[in-house]
Every structure is written in C-alpha cells, then in structure tokens.
C-alpha cells in the first residue's frame, strides 16, 4: 500500500505541505531573495490592510491591495453568474433537438480547451477600438463602440466576454445534469397544469443544483486566481500590467508583480496566505449553506 502511495506522499510533503509551511514563515519576514529572510512579525499583514509601510514607517500601506480585491470581486460577481446562466440556458437549448446535439456540443466545448494566451490574443484583436471587427460592426450600426481594453470602464467587460467564450465545459456538465432529470417528474407537474417557468422553477432547477453548486465552487476558486487573461491582454495591448488605470489589476496579478517583479517574497507570501484563507472560508460557507438549496438524488449523487 505504502509503495503504491509513495509518489503522492513524497509529492505532498515536498511540493505542497512543506512549501505551504515555508510560505507561512516567509509571510512574517522581509525577503528579497538576496539577503536572508528577516523576521518582521505581522508587518506584512499590517502593510497589506493599510496601516504600515514595508520599512516600519507609519503610512497608508499598500496603495493597490484594495484595488486588486475590488477588481477580483467585480470579475467574480459579474462574470460567474453570467457564466452559470449562459451555460444553463445553452444546455437547455441543446436538449430540444433530436439530431445534431453532439455536433453543437463539440463546437461549444472546443473554445474552453483553447489556451488562455491564444484566446486573449484573439480577443484583444477583436476588441481593438479602431481596427477590430467588433467596433467596425458597431460602427456599421451607427454606434461608436467603447475603447474596450483602453478604457478602465470597459476593460473588465471585455474580459467577461472572453470568459463567456470558454463556458463549454460548464455546458457539458449542465447538459449531463439535464439528461439525468427523470422524465416522469415533468409529466407529473404537467398534469397539475404547470407552465414552462414553473417546470423550470420546480423541476429543472432543483435537479440542476448539484451542478450549479459545483460550477459555483470551481468558479470562485478560479476567480480568485484570475491571472492569464489580464496579464496577456496587458502585454499585448502594450498597456502596463494591470492597466488601464489599474482596472485589470486583479489579486493574483498584483501578487505576481510583488513576488516576481519586485521580489517582495515575504509580502507576496502574506498575500498568498490571505488568498488561501479567503478561498477556504468562502468554500466552507458554500458547503455549509449547500444543505439548504442543493438537492441530491434523482441519479445525481
């Protein structure tokens, strides 16, 4: 047994648990990779939440921490519900026709497998304010399109559209969930004279709640780590990382900058631990509330 388990055991100690403890230690130090780590107690955390500079001088603290927190919550609160609604709606459309479902499913699923770097390159081109096809198309309709990746108001919405392009994996899950709903449930509620909305409200949606729950948890974990698209769109447009006007400075982007551009390894470790704790707390809250609204049974277990 131990022989079979040993690869994971070694990996867990050396590449997961050990590094986590190290990073907890680093989060209480000042460490720039050149001189050895210097113990500074809670100063990194004080600086993060805005009470101290890195050198111990009283100050406003990290000027961009809360910006990055706000941006991250924005992309999750706007992007994730849209993702779930569109995936569910598309999956419901897919249950209607008798033929060709597999063909459509292939087309919808494919973009979710595409590399984020490639997808971001394409969308920066599509959203180019002057030469991109989207604004050219809007121009034909007499609408002058926004500056998208060059406008702090419209940069995040452009990323949300890019995210919606990749909902194929969620569509596959919702479709599988829908095909698991027992037909007699619909027959029973139809006999009672339910309309389409009531069928959705009292049969379809309850039966889909396990999938909603799963996509919600995955979406929050991924949302906290949102990085590739923001970073690549910045390097491709020629904006600075996080720009325009820090509207794309997400938590993980700021963490990466702290760690690998400024080599504030201690401070970045503290940010990483706050990220970890926030992920755990939100996941725990979702798990605890899930008993109230997630229905298990009916083939889904």
């Amino acid at each position, binding site marked *: *047994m131990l022989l*079979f388990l040993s*690869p*994971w055991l070694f*990996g*867990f100690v050396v590449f*997961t648990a*050990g*590094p986590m403890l190290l*990073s907890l230690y680093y989060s209480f130090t000042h*460490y720039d990779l050149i001189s050895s780590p210097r113990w500074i107690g809670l100063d990194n955390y004080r600086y993060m939440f805005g009470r101290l500079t890195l050198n111990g001088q009283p100050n406003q603290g990290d000027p961009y921490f809360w910006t990055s927190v706000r941006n991250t919550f924005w992309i999750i609160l706007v992007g994730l519900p849209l993702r779930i609604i569109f995936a569910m709606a*598309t999956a419901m*459309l*897919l249950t*209607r*026709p008798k033929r*060709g479902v597999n063909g*459509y499913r*292939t*087309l*919808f*699923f*494919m*973009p979710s*497998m595409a*590399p984020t*770097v*490639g997808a971001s*390159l*394409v969308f920066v*081109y*599509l959203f180019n304010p002057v*030469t991109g*096809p989207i604004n*050219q*198309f809007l121009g034909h309709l007499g609408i002058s399109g926004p500056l998208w990746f060059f406008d702090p108001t419209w940069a995040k919405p452009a990323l949300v559209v890019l995210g919606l*392009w990749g909902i*194929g*994996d969620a569509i*596959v*899950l919702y479709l*599988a969930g829908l095909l698991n709903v027992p037909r007699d449930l619909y027959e029973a509620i139809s006999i009672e004279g339910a309309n389409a909305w009531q069928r959705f409200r009292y049969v379809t949606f309850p039966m889909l709640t*396990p*999938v909603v729950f*799963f996509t919600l948890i995955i979406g929050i*974990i991924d949302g906290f780590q949102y*990085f*590739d698209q923001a970073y690549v769109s910045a*390097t*491709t447009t020629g904006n600075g990382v996080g720009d325009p006007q820090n509207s794309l400075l997400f938590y993980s982007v700021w963490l*990466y900058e702290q*760690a*690998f551009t400024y080599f504030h*390894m201690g401070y970045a*470790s503290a940010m*990483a631990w706050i*990220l970890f704790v926030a*992920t*755990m707390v939100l996941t725990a809250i979702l798990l605890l509330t899930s008993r109230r609204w997630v229905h298990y049974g009916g083939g889904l*277990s």
Partner: protein
Amino acid sequence: MAVANHSVLIGVSALFMFPVIYMFFTAVQSNDQALTGKLWPDPFVWSNFRTVFHEINVWRYLWNTFLYAGLSTVGVVCSCVPVAYAFSRIDWRGRNVVFLLVLSTLMLPTQVTSIPLYILWAKQFHDWTGIQFIGTLRPLIIPSFFGDAFSIFLLRQFFMTIPQELTDAIRVDGGGHLQILWRVVIPLAKPAIVAVALFNFIYAWNDFYGPLVYLASNQDAQTLSVALSSFRSIHHVDWNLTMAAALIFMLPVIVIFFFAQRVFIEGITLTGVKG
C-alpha cells in the same frame, strides 16, 4: 419547432466560432487588410506563417512546449495510476481521511505554493544538487512525477467501478496487488488513463503561469505560451502575424480535441456530476 430550435443553435454556434474564424482568416491577410476588420482575405498571404517562423524561433518554442507537455504527462500517468489504485482497490485504515487531503489540495491556489517552490528551486534544491533549475523546464516537469490531485481523483472514480469479481480471480491464483493492477485494472481503465493523459497534455501545453514564473529569465527555454504573450509588444508585429502565431499555438490543441472529444466530455462529466 425543429427549425426554430436549430436556427437558434446555429446562431449560438456562430457566436462561438466567430473568434476562431476571424483568427484563421486574419492570419492569412496582408498587414493593411488586417486593420480593416474585413473577414475574407484578399489576397491570401500564406507566407505570413513563414514570416512568423522567421521572426521568432517557433521550432524551439514548439519543442520546449512539447517536452513540457509530453514529459509531465508521462510523469502524471506513471505516478497517479498506482496512487489511485491505493485509494480505490486496497483497504487500509484512514484511507478516506487521506483521500480528503488529496481533494483539499485541489482547492489550494497555485500562488500559495508557487512562491516558496520558486525559492526552493532557486536556492535549496539548487545548492543540494548543484543543478540549475530556474530558467529550465525541470521545475515544471519534476513535480508531475509525484502525483496530481485532479488525475488521482479522476482515476480513482473510474477504478471504483471495476467489479470486485474480476480481481478476485487473480487473488485466488495467489497474485498480489501489482499483478492485479497490471493485468486487470490498467487494461480495463484504458479510457480513464487516456483521458488523464490528454487532460494533462493540454493543461501543460496551455499552461502560462508556471512557464512565466520559471522561464521568463531564459528565452531559449520558453514555451509557446510565454513567447507569444510578449510576441506583439516585443516584435512590434502586425495583427496578421499575431493571429498566425496564435493559430500555430492553438492548432495542436484543436486537432487533439476533435480527435478525442468524447474522451474529454466523458472525463468532465465523470468529475463533475458523479463527484
């Protein structure tokens, strides 16, 4: 009714395909035409691909990406099959608790371990072995030989479905777990192993964060994802070449996907619905 359903679905399909179609046609347009937003290339400039290969060392980046994706896939399959076996076909005390530990690492943000790991590869691991790790593919490939939580989970889900009677026969003949794994479980679990291999290959092919952290300092070791992320800003190239480069990067993924889409769809469903 059928016509209405299909026309809505065709419309949605068009929205999903629109970026891919634009990428393909823009890749073979002239510089000037790529700035007009028009779709149909006039003329077709196939030499754009040659220009991309001339502009950056595409072969080297392709090879690096292939090395990373290929070797880490070998690592994940070799390490996760026995581990998943231990979590599904061997009874031992505390199995479920330890398995929960495996699952909980799925929720661990990459950032939490990436900083200390970077320091370990740069300092301690380097000092102990005398091997250079930063600026090479090694820190990306080596950990995959020591298990991956998602792959262990997916394989375990599949191993659980293999009937006990099939393994009992070997037990009666006096065969141990290695024999059961080799002669019964692996042959039966081929679809799941293929799914794990393909998921990992594509994950590594697409991976950006890992290569960015470890390879940013060494251009010769970079993967396509890192090389392309800075392609436009460093080489001041036009959109047609950027799209041609993006297409070269995405084409292997698209080809693998179309040949093996059933495997991906079944894999996604296995982890999401039956979890």
